[in-house]
């Protein structure tokens, strides 16, 4: 099916029914569920790294943070919890679709070899971390997640293209998704994949702010997840929702990985100030929790720690086994280097730089309950799609929803034509830095862009600082004319830098548009300190207008499928302990 183009850079063209971009978590599940729905479809999975070990769960996961398991929680309770934790601005139908798909997906994962913690009678061992409900299911042997997914991809004959970075979506005559332009990260050869429908699953924009360590790749998210999906969706005309609702995480200082309170909380670990006192009632990551965390850091009670010193030896051993073999196993090595032993010393924590990620926050490419974006034939799932707080299990469930719906969609769709002029222009954009003998390196341009993000965009958000940010980002954008690379690897970084710049501009524009404060620290606008439900109880959608500029619109919050009594809406606003609780 592959045909070389004549003239121009080396370019292969492949045709398929469904193209999935991103082989981490949601992407593989989209491909798997599309093939299960219709084994006759040709499904291509494009991945910038290698599907075996790519994405946020490269090294597995230590637990499900949002399992909706009968006997512990109902989909209605979960929808209520997530609505309240997000100040009401949620598309409940999508949260409900996730909640209803949660338990079947756990059973499916179980059936393909993903292991979850069970009690003596074989029941799932669910624990409580959230403010209201019980949703956390540990995965002490969760390091095999990627292997289980890979087996299914092979079994179902999904066509995998590793080491191709998607750079821009192709759009058809009516603006619909028509495929993607990809470039090989080791050869800079092009691969054009034409498709009837496209699922974007490119992860978070996790390389937006600069880590305090100054190490560009010392991020919470897998740094390969640098916002490519947001940039591609934007340039294809899709709407992006609530980008002003940043992701900011409480992390192990400098290591910048999770501490991880969700794992330690059920065992008795807790977030403490420098006196060893609790100051928040609930360790679940919400914007309000982050604001309390931020306040404590800034106060005389800072810094903030994770305290496990009071726990029994066998408990600490169990925590170490989970934390040092899953998700971010180098945590143990980091603590060792600092001489931090959970038994004797609290773990110093800090807040992360900003990013976009619906895994823990609520922003992303707008999707409805069928994972459809605002562009026909284009789907999004996982950390980059707008279903709030969806974590790993949400990526699986919503990826599956996207794959199934895409399978239905392409049954009644022909392969759209694409614009050869669009392809040629994109190839020229991609290759421009290879045509210069010297100039600015991707490293220094990325460092500067991300340092500016920290200087001006990190909340509390100040309007005057945001205006300066926009000027500085524009200057960096002008400097792209001097960007220069020496090999295909650097070209990948140069392209990623351009996604990062797009995300930085979107973060600034979206934040300026919403003239109120909401979601605790995530959108704390100092010049508009109050929450303004009269004007802003709505989603914001950012999109590229006909003139190629960033534009905004409001989208009303759909009628709730699970009504929330007024008095329950503020549950997440009362997270600070009434008086500091003494150390245990």
């Amino acid at each position, binding site marked *: 099916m592959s045909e070389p183009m004549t003239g121009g850079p080396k370019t292969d063209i492949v045709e398929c029914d469904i193209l999935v971009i991103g082989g981490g978590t949601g992407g593989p599940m989209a491909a798997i569920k599309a093939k299960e729905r219709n084994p006759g479809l040709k499904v291509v999975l494009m991945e910038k790294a290698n599907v075996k*070990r790519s994405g946020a769960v490269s090294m597995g996961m230590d637990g499900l943070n949002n399992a909706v398991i009968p006997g512990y929680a109902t989909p209605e309770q979960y929808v209520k919890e997530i609505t309240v934790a997000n100040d009401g601005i949620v598309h409940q139908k999508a949260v409900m679709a996730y909640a209803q798909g949660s338990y079947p997906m756990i059973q499916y994962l179980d059936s393909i070899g993903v292991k979850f913690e069970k009690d003596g009678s074989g029941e799932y061992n669910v624990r409580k971390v959230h403010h209201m409900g019980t949703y956390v299911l540990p995965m002490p042997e969760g390091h095999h997640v990627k292997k289980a997914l890979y087996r299914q991809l092979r079994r179902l004959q999904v066509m995998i293209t590793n080491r191709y970075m998607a750079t821009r979506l192709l759009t058809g005559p009516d603006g619909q998704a028509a495929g993607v332009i990809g470039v090989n990260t080791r050869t800079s050869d092009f691969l054009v994949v034409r498709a009837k429908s496209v699922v974007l699953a490119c992860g978070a924009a996790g390389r937006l702010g600069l880590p305090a360590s100054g190490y560009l790749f010392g991020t919470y998210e897998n740094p390969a997840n640098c916002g490519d999906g947001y940039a591609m969706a934007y340039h294809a005309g899709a709407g992006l929702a609530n980008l002003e609702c940043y992701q900011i995480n409480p992390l192990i200082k400098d290591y910048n990985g999770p501490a991880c309170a969700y794992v330690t909380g059920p065992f008795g670990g807790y977030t403490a100030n420098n006196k060893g006192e609790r100051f928040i009632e609930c360790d679940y990551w919400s914007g309000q929790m982050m604001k309390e965390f931020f306040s404590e850091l800034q106060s005389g009670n800072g810094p903030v720690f994770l305290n496990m010193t009071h726990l029994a030896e066998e408990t600490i051993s169990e925590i170490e086994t989970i934390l040092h073999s899953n998700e971010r196993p*180098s945590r143990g090595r980091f603590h060792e280097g600092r001489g931090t032993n959970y038994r004797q010393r609290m773990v110093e924590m800090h807040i992360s730089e900003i990013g976009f990620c619906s895994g823990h926050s609520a922003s992303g490419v707008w999707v409805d309950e069928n994972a459809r974006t605002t562009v026909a034939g284009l789907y999004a799932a996982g950390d980059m799609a707008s279903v709030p707080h969806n974590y790993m299990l949400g990526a699986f469930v919503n990826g599956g929803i996207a794959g199934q719906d895409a399978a239905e969609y392409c049954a009644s769709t022909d392969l759209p034509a694409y614009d050869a002029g669009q392809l040629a222009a994109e190839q020229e954009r991609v290759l421009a830095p290879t045509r210069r003998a010297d100039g600015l390196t991707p490293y220094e341009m990325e460092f500067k862009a991300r340092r500016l993000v920290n200087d001006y965009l990190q909340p509390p958000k100040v309007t005057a600082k945001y205006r300066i940010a926009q000027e500085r980002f524009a200057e960096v954008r002008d400097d792209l004319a001097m960007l220069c690379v020496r090999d295909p690897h650097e070209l990948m970084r140069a392209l990623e830098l351009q996604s990062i710049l797009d995300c930085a501009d979107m973060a600034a524009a979206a934040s300026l548009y919403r003239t109120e404060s909401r979601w605790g620290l995530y959108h704390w606008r100092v010049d508009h300190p109050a929450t303004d439900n009269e004007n802003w109880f709505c989603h914001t959608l950012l999109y590229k207008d006909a003139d190629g500029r960033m534009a905004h619109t409001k989208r009303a919050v759909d009628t709730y499928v699970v009504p929330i009594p007024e008095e329950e809406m503020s549950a997440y606003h009362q997270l600070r302990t009434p008086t500091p609780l003494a150390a245990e």
Partner: protein
Amino acid sequence: MPHANHATSVPVTIDDEKCIAEKGCRVCIDVCPLDVLAINPATGKAHMKYDECWYCMPCEVDCPTHAVKVEIPYLLR
């Protein structure tokens, strides 16, 4: 603007004695999510070519001969 030669210490080290790249093994290079490992043309063994590490450890865990060691990058340590 010409470029400077800027040296940094690398967090991932490979024991050349144990590395079996000459037998065609590319496991660590294949699994790295950031594509920072490559064959060193001088030795024929794997090495860290780009200092862009997430200290995520598939290279170390998946290496069939335990030749790879991941350290926390110095700036974070």
